[in-house]
């Protein structure tokens, strides 16, 4: 039993610990931020050049019309989903262990969706006409094609972005008020505006509680639906290797898989640098690792089921496609994908490894490499080898533009994340206080 004195100091300690993060950022932070800003700038310069010169700068051809950009799009949207799972779904399930991760996870969601949202623009052949993808009143009396999965994407990702931002922001309001309490001058004004004058009265808490639950209730189906809609970009086509009903659950679990891995990648160094070991413990990590195992198993199941059914069906297009996927020109990428996504995470069944934070960190990087390659393999191999053998063909080498933009997307994500660390409370103060009660 804690003494009252200990209880008093604990709440204040929580506040102090979390808010002092923005002071602990030394020159290493600014160096890192400069580096990520440079990467972002590289990405944007490459994109600008691509708009001026043509999509031909990216490594695509007939038949492979989609490659790096759609891979990146699905990758980033996938990463976003895990954040929503942790903050929204686990809220509804009243899982207490989410409290230490959920702010970082929500931030990751928002920034990942922002990064992902750029890619439908980047991959447009005529990017300057991007606004035609949104339904608006125009002189031509022409709307958008609501039957097209790309328009479903527009709605799904826009909704996801809006709801995630709202959820992220709303969850931060009490913490921004706490930050306001502890800051001075321009910072105080910044936090005051952001916190909307929140005080924490019982009236405010009464409605706030319901707001969070409702938002979580809205965000939860988004976890399942948004990535399902993104997966239907592929499943609604008729290409063998794409046209299959397993895509929605396959992609959603894959999304949670890669997103959880990205949470680990972000939180482990954050925890170390800002000495937040008290708040993010091995128990938390073990639970997160369990999510990794479950989703890895689902993804592994899909890896087995698809080729198996292709062989069983006897459909020559399917059989040929899956043979090509694993033994054709892209066998190397497919091999890494299988290893990183299905084989390596199985080691997490061992409890000791689950609780080993260094191991989890390395595992999370492999998982993200594997998941990126999974989207690449799905997209490129299916397009390279479909119905008409004359049209078979692929593209191997990445071009500078593609690489630059991919690296730029990582740069953008980490820039935003670093800025988040500096300026916003990286842990959910009020929830931790409540949970440790």
């Amino acid at each position, binding site marked *: 039993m804690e003494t*009252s004195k200990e*209880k*008093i100091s604990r*709440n*204040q300690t929580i506040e102090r610990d979390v808010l002092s993060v923005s002071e602990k950022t030394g020159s290493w932070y600014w160096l890192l931020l400069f580096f990520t800003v440079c990467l972002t700038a590289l990405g944007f310069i490459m994109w600008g050049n691509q708009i001026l010169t043509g999509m031909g700068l990216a490594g695509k051809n007939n038949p492979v019309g989609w490659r790096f950009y759609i891979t990146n799009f699905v990758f980033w949207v996938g990463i976003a989903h895990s954040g929503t799972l942790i903050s929204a779904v686990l809220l509804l399930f009243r899982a207490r262990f989410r409290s230490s991760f959920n702010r970082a996870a929500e931030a990751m969601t928002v920034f990942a969706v922002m990064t992902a949202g750029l890619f439908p623009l980047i991959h447009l052949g005529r990017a300057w006409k991007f606004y035609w993808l949104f339904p608006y009143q125009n002189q031509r*009396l*022409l*709307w*958008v*094609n*609501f*039957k097209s999965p790309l*328009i*479903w994407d527009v*709605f*799904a990702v*826009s*909704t996801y972005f*809006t*709801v995630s931002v*709202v*959820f992220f922001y*709303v969850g931060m309001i*009490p913490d921004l008020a*706490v930050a*306001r*309490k502890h800051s001075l001058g321009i910072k*105080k004004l910044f936090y*005051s*505006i952001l*916190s*909307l*004058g*929140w*005080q*924490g*009265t*019982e*009236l*405010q*808490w*009464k*409605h*706030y*509680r*319901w*707001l969070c639950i*409702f*938002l979580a209730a*809205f*965000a939860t*189906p988004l976890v399942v*639906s948004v990535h399902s*809609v993104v997966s239907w970009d592929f499943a609604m086509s008729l290409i063998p290797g794409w046209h299959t009903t397993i895509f929605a659950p396959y992609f959603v679990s894959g999304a949670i898989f890669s997103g959880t891995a990205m949470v680990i990648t972000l939180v482990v160094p954050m925890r170390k640098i800002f000495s937040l070991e008290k708040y993010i413990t091995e128990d938390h990590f073990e639970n997160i690792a369990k999510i990794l195992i479950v989703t890895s198993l689902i993804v592994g199941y899909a890896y087995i089921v698809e080729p198996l059914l292709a062989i069983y069906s006897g459909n020559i297009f399917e059989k040929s496609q899956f043979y090509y996927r694993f033994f054709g020109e892209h066998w190397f990428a497919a091999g890494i994908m299988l290893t990183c996504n299905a084989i390596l995470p199985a080691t997490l069944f061992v409890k000791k490894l689950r609780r080993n934070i260094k191991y989890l960190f390395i595992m999370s990087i492999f998982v993200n490499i594997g998941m990126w390659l999974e989207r690449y393999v799905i997209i490129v191999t299916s397009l390279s080898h479909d119905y008409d053998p004359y049209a078979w063909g692929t593209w191997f080498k990445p071009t500078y533009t593609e690489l630059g933009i991919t690296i730029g997307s990582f740069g953008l994500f980490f820039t935003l994340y670093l800025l988040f660390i500096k300026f916003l409370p990286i842990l959910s*103060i*009020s*929830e931790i*206080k*409540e949970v440790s*009660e």
Partner: protein
Amino acid sequence: MSQHFVFDEKNVFLNKLRELLKSGVPQKNISVITPYHVHEVDEILVSAPSKLRIFTFAGALLGGIAGFAFPIYTTLSWKINVGGKPVVSIPAFVIIAFELTILFGALATFFGFLLFSKLPVLKQIIDPVDYDKQFVILVKNGEK
């Protein structure tokens, strides 16, 4: 004339609150500030449950209807044949309706929250009043 009592410990704060009520201070004059939602306060300061769900429901319903009405209207206004699919294709519109339900519901809930919580409070933004301790009881009109 208002009074305020600050505490760092929850139980002490709750006892004081009960004491205040027992001593006859009208509930409408008492306001508390807590670092997180304390459910015991709800039992002590009884109030009507939140009506936020009305906004949620209305927003979601509006979104659902809009999600069907808008695509149906646009496809009927210019019947373009794509892929031989029926011009009004409900399965495709379900997805739009689903997303718009969530979007409108979430936004309606948020704005409902702002409305009910009377946020943003301009005075509190410009000249914020914060307390050192975690739990605070505010009593208005100086009544004991």
